[in-house]
């Protein structure tokens, strides 16, 4: 794992794209172009990047409102994601979803869910269909530490375990719910890992800021699921660089804690590691330049995009394309 490889560069590219993209989302939110709310995954990119690198293109991801990274890295077009957050016509959901509901079914990005816990049973269901249909797909479901306290978490884990479903549950433990430290609302140290045994599962902890480590574990659990050996519950320890959402400055977090984690930035450490492993600075900078250009291009597209056609207000409630509830 220590020698540079195409896939390691690809993970670096993914993390940089996610990083630059979300930095821009933040700026555009402050500018009023991105509307409503945003929940940035800045600082948590290695989890999405490591898992996506381990997935097959027909595998399925389910994520939360904090799902920009995951959706982008599965392959959704950047402008369409940004456009959705800005409520423009070119938005990936036509402006109907907003920042908390990014979805690109063509890429297996099966939705971002804004109600804590809801997508865990849904991911289990998609895995169940994969199993019955024999597609060999694995569903990967991302969520936060706070989510381990809600009922749907428990029901989904139990069902997935007893039906041996090909689903991997990934808890991104960033130490906080919104503003409340997870340690104050849970009686165990590791919100996910300490609960795996309740479902007959192995306790799995990984450094969520180390993309190589994430990919290694991801490959193992995804392939295990694909072989029919059932679900896994992974806890990836990480940290968000920004506040919970919107302009939240995150003042409820001790400065030393923030500083320590900013120093342990997954992008920064991976850049250093790749360099140490012999990747030339040119290669790295080219990746960074490309990502910056992609973000600039997407931004331009979105700035120039019109709002959604008012006629679409009443489309897509039903499969017939419309919203009529009466004849």
């Amino acid at each position: 794992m220590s020698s540079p490889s195409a896939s390691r560069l690809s993970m670096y590219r993914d993390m940089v794209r996610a990083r630059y993209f979300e930095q821009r989302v933040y700026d555009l939110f402050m500018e009023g172009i991105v509307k409503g709310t945003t929940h940035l995954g800045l600082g948590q990119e290695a989890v999405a990047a490591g898992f996506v690198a381990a997935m097959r293109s027909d595998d399925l991801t389910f994520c939360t409102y904090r799902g920009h990274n995951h959706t982008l890295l599965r392959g959704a077009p950047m402008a369409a994601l940004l456009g959705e957050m800005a409520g423009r016509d070119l938005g990936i959901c036509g402006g109907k979803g907003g920042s908390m509901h990014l979805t690109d079914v063509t890429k297996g990005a099966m939705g971002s869910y804004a109600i804590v816990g809801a997508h865990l049973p849904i991911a289990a269901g998609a895995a169940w269909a994969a199993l019955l249909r024999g597609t060999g797909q694995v569903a990967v479901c991302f969520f936060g530490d706070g989510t381990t306290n809600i009922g749907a978490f428990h029901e989904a884990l139990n069902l997935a375990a007893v039906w041996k479903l090909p689903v991997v549950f990934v808890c991104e433990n960033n130490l906080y719910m919104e503003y409340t430290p997870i340690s104050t609302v849970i009686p165990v140290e590791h919100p996910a890992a300490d609960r795996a045994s309740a479902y007959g599962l192995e306790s799995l902890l990984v450094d969520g800021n180390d993309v190589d480590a994430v990919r290694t574990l991801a490959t193992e659990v995804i392939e295990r699921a694909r072989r029919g050996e059932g679900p896994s519950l992974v806890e990836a320890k990480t940290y968000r660089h920004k506040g919970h959402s919107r302009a939240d400055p995150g003042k409820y977090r001790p400065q030393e804690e923030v500083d320590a984690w900013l120093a342990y930035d997954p992008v920064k450490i991976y850049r250093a590691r790749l360099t140490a492993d012999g990747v030339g600075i040119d290669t790295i900078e080219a990746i960074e330049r490309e990502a910056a250009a992609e973000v600039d291009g997407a931004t331009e597209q979105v700035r120039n995009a019109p709002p959604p056609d008012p006629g679409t207000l009443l489309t897509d409630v039903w499969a017939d394309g419309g919203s009529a509830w009466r004849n």
Partner: protein
Amino acid sequence: MAELTYRAAVARGIAQEMERDPSVVFIGEDVAAAGGVFKTTEGLLERFGPDRVRDTPISEQAITGALMGAAMNGLRPIGELMFSDFLAVCWDIVANQIAKTRYMTGGQVALPLVIRTANGGGTRFGGQHSQSLESWAMAVPGLKVVAPSTPRDVVGLLAAAVRDPDPVVFFEHKKLFATKQDVPDGEIVDRLGIATVVAPGSDVTIAALAAMVPVALEAAGRLSESGVSAEVIDLRSLVPLDTRTLLESVTRTGRLVTVEENPRLCGWGAEIASIVAEEALWDLDGPIVRVTTPHIPLPAAAEMEDLAIPSADRVVDAVLRIT
């Protein structure tokens, strides 16, 4: 043509669709090995095997979530909630996820799934196992809502629900499980959103649903003895709602009485009354009267429960008040 109970019609409807389409699967609590607590799904496990007919843990969020995920990934799942009251324990999945996902994704996600559930009172089970909750589902954009009143309709509407590309909540009425009817052999498939005029009449329109249909019919019979000609409409589905049949009838009769088993406030009867009061006001020859269960939880004692749920007597009284 053979006599079929409403109860047996459920299994027949499910079997008809599972036979036809291998992507149809069925899950729920005690539905497979035991054939369901109301014996509505007997024989399905034996016929279609444990991959397609499966018992679940007591986890309604997981059940409905699994339906949704499976529908997103190529199946057409049917799930059972043993009692409609349990919609409340998975209401987020039903009302916030299943109902909204097609729209919120800009039409990317289709959810062809059916949630079947035993609904309604009259069985002395008390307030947490007797509710009539069709109006809860009706109030949520993105859900179709079906509630058959006869064995034949159970088969035809269930088939329509399974084939429908959108999520359907299918309310089976506990009080009707034992009722019987001659039902044609062979495949039966209806369309959703077509009400039936089950008794023609000219003086008043009575709109009813599920177990209230026989109540309305009984009332119509008695009314005809008093010289009042009542037209009874079985709505069959609340979403889509057949307002055409309804408005045509009301404009002809000039009077409307709705018969709802649910508690008073914000029931489907209110919706229908408001449609008529907006679109056919000048055709009315009398006030619109809603007969409902009072706005109370349903009591368990037999005499009290019977008093609470609309009876033919109360429907007759309501009609006579406005004719």
